[in-house]
């Protein structure tokens, strides 16, 4: 499939020139085309922020909901119609800050969705305050003395919760990011891809150059099936590893666990309630139940 099927043509985009969101959008369109995922079978759910505008910028079904709340509707959309490919995509503030509780519990619930987080370590849309992933000492108009809260480590948290797929990528490396996203989207179960992405306007510290200098890829010999090892690598601080940290392929998805698709793969919209069964249930209130 040609990635042009996702192009919307000449649209007005709210991202700054040079923003890390552009390469992520381009890579994502290529990945979806290579995986032959039709726009009509794809739902992208987002929250609020600059990254969260992404489903408005390519051809897909789009659910752009509330700040921090992309994961609950994404989970529900997938379970209501498992035939859809569902991506929940937003920024670090949205997913890890405002939506932190959903992040934890969606991992536990394990829907077969891909959670892409544009991580630029800063709040862009509100003009430059610290995000949950801002590094210690990062100065902003609000954190005037520098950030002193321990940065949120999404990978370590996800691995601690035995997430079924945990990876980190860098928007400046299209080839590797493509491969990681492909693995994530084809993985069955919840897949987190945290993508480092520079904010060229509000984060003058974590630039393209900075990420190039501070990141490296997990070795070819690294196998992502050891949770303890994955956790260890996720907590490295001086140099930040990229790649797939952890996969647990043995987890049942939320859609499998709810049980309604075991012998009937029709999505919910094609189903009707069993009124005869309901009549019997009402009758059962004649005696004790």
């Amino acid at each position, binding site marked *: 499939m040609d990635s042009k099927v996702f192009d919307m043509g000449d649209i007005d985009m709210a991202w700054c020139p040079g923003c890390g969101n552009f390469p992520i959008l381009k890579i994502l369109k290529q990945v979806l085309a290579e995986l032959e995922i039709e726009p009509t079978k794809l739902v992208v759910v987002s929250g609020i922020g600059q990254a969260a505008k992404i489903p408005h910028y390519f051809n897909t*079904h789009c659910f752009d909901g509330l700040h921090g709340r992309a994961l609950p509707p994404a989970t*529900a959309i997938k379970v209501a119609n498992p035939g859809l490919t569902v991506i929940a995509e937003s920024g670090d503030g949205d997913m890890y800050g405002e939506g932190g509780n959903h992040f934890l519990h969606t991992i536990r619930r394990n829907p077969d969705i891909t959670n892409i987080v544009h991580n630029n370590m800063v709040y862009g849309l509100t003009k430059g305050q610290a995000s949950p992933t801002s590094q210690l000492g990062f100065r902003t108009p609000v954190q005037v003395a520098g950030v002193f809260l321990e940065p949120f480590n999404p990978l370590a948290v996800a691995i601690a919760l035995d997430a079924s797929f945990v990876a980190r990528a860098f928007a400046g490396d299209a080839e590797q990011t493509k491969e990681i996203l492909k693995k994530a989207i084809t993985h069955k179960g919840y897949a987190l891809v945290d993508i480092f992405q520079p904010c060229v306007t509000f984060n003058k510290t974590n630039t393209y150059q900075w990420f190039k200098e501070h990141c490296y890829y997990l070795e070819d010999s690294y196998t992502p099936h050891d949770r303890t090892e994955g956790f260890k690598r996720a907590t490295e601080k001086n140099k930040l590893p990229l790649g797939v940290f952890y996969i647990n392929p043995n987890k049942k998805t939320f859609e499998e666990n709810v049980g309604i698709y075991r012998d009937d793969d029709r999505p919910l919209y094609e189903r*009707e309630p*069993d009124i005869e069964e*309901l009549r019997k249930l009402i009758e059962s209130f004649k005696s004790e139940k």
Partner: protein
Amino acid sequence: MLSDMSLRDKQDVSIVLCGQAGQGIQTVEFLLTRLLKLVGYNVFATKEYMSRVRGGMNSTTIRISSRPVRALVDRIDILVALDKGAVGHVEKRISADTVVLAEKQIIGDDFERVRDNFADVPFVKTAEDIGSKVYSNVVAVGVLAGLFGIDKRVTTDSVRKFFSAKAGDIVENNVKAADAGYKLGTDLAASDKVRFSIRPDADVKDQILLNGAEAVGLGAIAGGCNFIAAYPMSPSTGVLVFLAKHAKEFRLIAEQAEDEIAAINMALGAWYAGARAMVSTSGGGFALMTEGLSLAGMLESPVVIHLAQRPGPATGLPTRTEQGDLELALYAGHGEFPRIILAPGKIEDAFYLTQNAFNLADRYQVPVFVLTDQYFMDSYYNIPSLDTSHTKIEKHIVKTKKDYKRYELTENGISPRGIPAYGEGLVAVDSDEHDTQGHITEDLDLRTKMVDKRLHKAEGMASDAMPPELVGPQDYKTLIVGWGSTYNIINEAMQDLARDDVAFLHFRQVYPLPKETQDFLSKAERTVIIENNATSQFGKLIKLHTGIDIERKILKYNGLGFSVEEVTEELKGLLA
């Protein structure tokens, strides 16, 4: 000692069981109401309880009658006091005519307060003889079954069935407890000291007995609900539990969300993908949902919200009742968007209204509330049946074409609702102001059009509003107004008042206000409103929309529902 005049000729007996949390009062309520109905007695039961797992004092009121009874009365004809403190807990409701069944040794000093009309029934001693005082509650089931002449075999069978999941000796000990209690009950009946003349009605045997939570749950299934997301919160949890219990047979998803915010956002995602979803919550939980409610307004998403009220603010009285969240439901959510609020009065209403809530939500693409409260959730009574023959699942989903626009501007404000992967189009919804395609916009002219479009739907909703029900004479001089769960209470009070110039107007749809409201009210010489809240929230709503100020108010907000006697007395005072 017992005076033998007790309860003679009574066709309507009110029994109150009172004891500590954890003593199994609910088990007695469950077993006894079902046994009594099986015999053909009309029954009503409701409970009041403390927000704790053990200790405190809880009580259940069970009415048994020759005619249908559907409301709480203060009067206690028989008090079963299972523990010390029980008498004190319901003291205001005890009269000289109240017969107290209790174990003298257990209730201690309380005995002096009720000695004139007392029957010493060894609930605990009998249980201990069987093996443990934990069986006292089932001894009480046996006593009351014996007293009311329920077949012994039916009684023990039902006890055996109720405990069937437990270990064999526990089942047998409970059966023994029921058996021993039964003998105590028949002895009591034979002593001629507790007599009544309630006539069983053969028709009642075939009726169904259910509470408000079950009726809402059944209504949801009838409405085609296939997805419920909720966070447990009294008194709304019963609906989640009911749907979870029946999830398998009805192929529905019942998910306990991490919080109420997740719950409503899941419900909106589910509707977006073509499911029919609801949430069930109470005031504090709904407060967390209000941003999601606003999202429903902006996305023009259907959603059904069961809001079971309890007294606030904040945590308030978690297990008590109030009609205090009407204004919350009415005004929750930032921004301006339409909504519908239904408030069942009868058990049947809960079924039909919840069912209809799904159709209304889908038809108008708006949030629809089913507003209940603890009293309604926890009250049981027998009704003939629930009719499923007219059940109609209205699905307003269109198959999309390639150029589909989710927010196409239409004459009535309703844009045909497509869902992903049904048709060739793309479905975009956005919490930002959006263009007709659903994409973010800051075109301010379009903004005005979108606001108008959303609000325009209210016109259709208003013309669909269910009219209020008038009980009593058409040529009334005084009109009593009530809404939601007070229906049966006010209705019975009206019967007790027996005035041919007074009628009762009950609203089961409170918003949009039915168009008939103005006419009903302006025909009256005087009007009275009865609400289970402190500020007459529905009265204010009526004034806002009709200009009519209902000056006479009967309000109660101590955490308990109205009793029939209370309403009767208050009305007598106002109408004198």
